[in-house]
């Protein structure tokens, strides 16, 4: 893994942009661009990053950014890639940077199409598990029992296992990452540059607004996501699956931290602890976590 001192100092995320204080999307963007080193065209649909793109006539990001419609990012990227090809440019990376709503929900068809066409691009879903740009409504990435402004008493369904859907399209490279491990994230973007064809990255991204935790706890909560087994770090090159170094020990449920440590930090789960711990609902979350592990290992190994 890259050492901190090996990561380039040049910044592509410009200070003084519109991101909320403590926004983990900015951490992901900083290190993604440090890895890609500027030879990139980034397509951004409606999502928080489109706000960071900022107010005309200024941009908060020092790379070319093409804002596009919510459901159209992968299609737009297909067009950008085709234009580069038509002009004989075979080096510039085309990267979509979309939220979970724009990926799991409204953008899924266009994404499926672009993957199936073997479009040479990198699609990044930064997943904060909610429509945060519109004020935290549930998406199909919102976890079971999480409170949102369209699930006031907690969501009644677990999240869609998007990674399985993506894997069925057989991208050349697929990974999950987590903003609490920026060096690992940096490495994965560097690696993505090596492959020609469709590449997909799924980034777990705590959101202080939607998850309702103290802003300074962004790194801790992301790590707890991994240490409780809730989020799994892995990558897949073709058929070759590797469980991430940070997640390896948590494959064993015995070694996982209690899920309460992750849930209790977040206001969106506070109803599970008031007036007393809701054992049944928390058990359901634990069961889903184990189910996801089982599905992942059974499918990919």
């Amino acid at each position, binding site marked *: 893994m890259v050492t901190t001192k090996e990561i380039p100092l040049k910044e592509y995320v410009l200070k003084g942009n519109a991101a909320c204080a403590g926004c983990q999307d900015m951490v992901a963007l900083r290190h993604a661009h440090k890895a890609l080193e*500027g*030879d*990139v*065209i980034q*397509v951004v649909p409606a999502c928080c990053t*489109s*706000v960071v*793109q*900022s*107010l*005309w*006539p*200024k*941009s908060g*990001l*020092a*790379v*070319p*950014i*093409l*804002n*596009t*419609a919510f*459901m*159209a990012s*992968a*299609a*737009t*990227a*297909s*067009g*950008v*890639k*085709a*234009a*580069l*090809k*038509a*002009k004989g440019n075979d080096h*510039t990376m085309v990267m979509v940077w979309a939220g979970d709503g724009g990926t799991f929900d409204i953008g899924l*068809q*266009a994404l*499926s*199409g672009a993957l*199936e*066409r073997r479009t040479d691009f990198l699609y990044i879903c930064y997943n904060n598990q909610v429509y945060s740009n519109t004020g935290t409504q549930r998406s199909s990435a919102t976890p079971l029992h999480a409170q949102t402004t369209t699930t006031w008493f907690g969501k009644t369904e677990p999240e869609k296992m998007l990674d399985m859907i993506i894997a069925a399209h057989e991208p050349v490279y697929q990974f999950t990452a987590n903003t609490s491990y920026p060096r690992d994230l940096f490495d994965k973007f560097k690696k993505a540059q090596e492959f020609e064809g469709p590449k997909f990255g799924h980034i777990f991204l705590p959101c202080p607004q939607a998850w309702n935790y103290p802003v300074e706890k962004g790194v801790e909560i992301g790590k707890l996501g991994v240490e409780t087994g809730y989020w799994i770090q892995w990558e897949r090159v073709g058929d070759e699956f590797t469980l991430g170094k940070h997640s390896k020990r948590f494959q064993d449920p015995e070694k996982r931290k209690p899920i309460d440590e992750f849930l209790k930090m977040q206001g969106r789960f506070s109803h599970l602890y008031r007036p007393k711990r809701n054992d049944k609902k928390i058990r359901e979350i634990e069961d889903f976590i184990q189910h996801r592990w089982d599905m992942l290992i059974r499918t990919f190994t």
Partner: protein
Amino acid sequence: MKTELMSANYAASRAVVSARVEVVAAYPITPATTVPEQIALLNEQGIYKGQFIRVESEHSAMFACIGASSTGARAFTATSSNGLLLMDEGLHWAAAARLPIVLNNVNRSVSPSWNIHVTHDDSYSKRDTGWIQFYVASVDELYHTIIQSFKLAEDERVLMPVMVNSDGFVLSHTVSPYDHLEPEEVDKFLPPYTPPHWVMDPENPVSHGNIVFPEHYSEFRNMMHEGTKNALPVYTEIEKEYKKLFGKYFGGPIDCYKCDDADVVFTSQGSMGAEAKDAIDELREEGYKAGNARMRMIRPFPVDKIRELGSKVKAFASFDRGVSYGFGGPVANDIRSTMYHMKHRPMIKSYIGGLGGRDMAIPDIKAVILDTFKAVESGELGPEETWNDLKD
């Protein structure tokens, strides 16, 4: 230049080659389907040298064109009916981003009342997107109008996308001759596209589509409006040049036939305008001073030309192959509002018919014009609009 025999759809695919389009993204829908089919074939044969993206929906087709055009490529797509409706978000997007995309819309009825034949409801419903709209009457006109449209769209004074409408089946699947130009010939007319303002380029990063507050929003919208309106004078220049280079001229925004001394002028969009010429000839023989104004461009609306025509005639018989539900014939209503402030206001009769591909033959067109003559004689407008061929 070489004469070829082809359907309008096949000719449209040849226009894409002749205009050196760099990216096509399209999705099949009857009756536009053979446009992408032919582009795919020409692509696989190495004749069309650009990229062809076989997208999974019309929404994606338009946004792939938006991505390509934003990266400086000349982009084209073709669709029909519900496909055009699915593109709607992208139509507004392309116009507001000032991207010179060209679209061949093969006019077809909108479902339900499932029907694959011509009605202009699909493109009529897109009049307010900012797209320039042409309606053509022949295979030859479609082929050359597509080539002209790239020049028009890419002109810095315009910088707006163009929709070239051709009637489903009547044109799309009917073989007739057209004069083909090789790309090397078109080069004399159409230089490569160079985006004049912004482009996606890592060497010079800009961000497009940022938030704009009320302080500047109106100004951007006003510049779009000006861009679309500029298409009228710019198209006049383009036609002049095209005629000089290739000897082709289709009549400007309104193709007039025997209008100079006419008492009643028949207006229509699309292929019907060609048949109307024969109806006019017959009426002239019968002693009626009738003229034909084939509306080739309805956005921007050729206001000056309509006013010039309107100052000389007693009435317009304005025919729409589509409806603005609750208000009547879309182009007829545009003509009415164009003439409102004029000193001489001719009678403007609105006719709706030929929907769902119902045939509009020469006798039907004659009947419409004669009905208008009758109204002029009586001085009574009659109904707000007349559903011409409605069965009671």
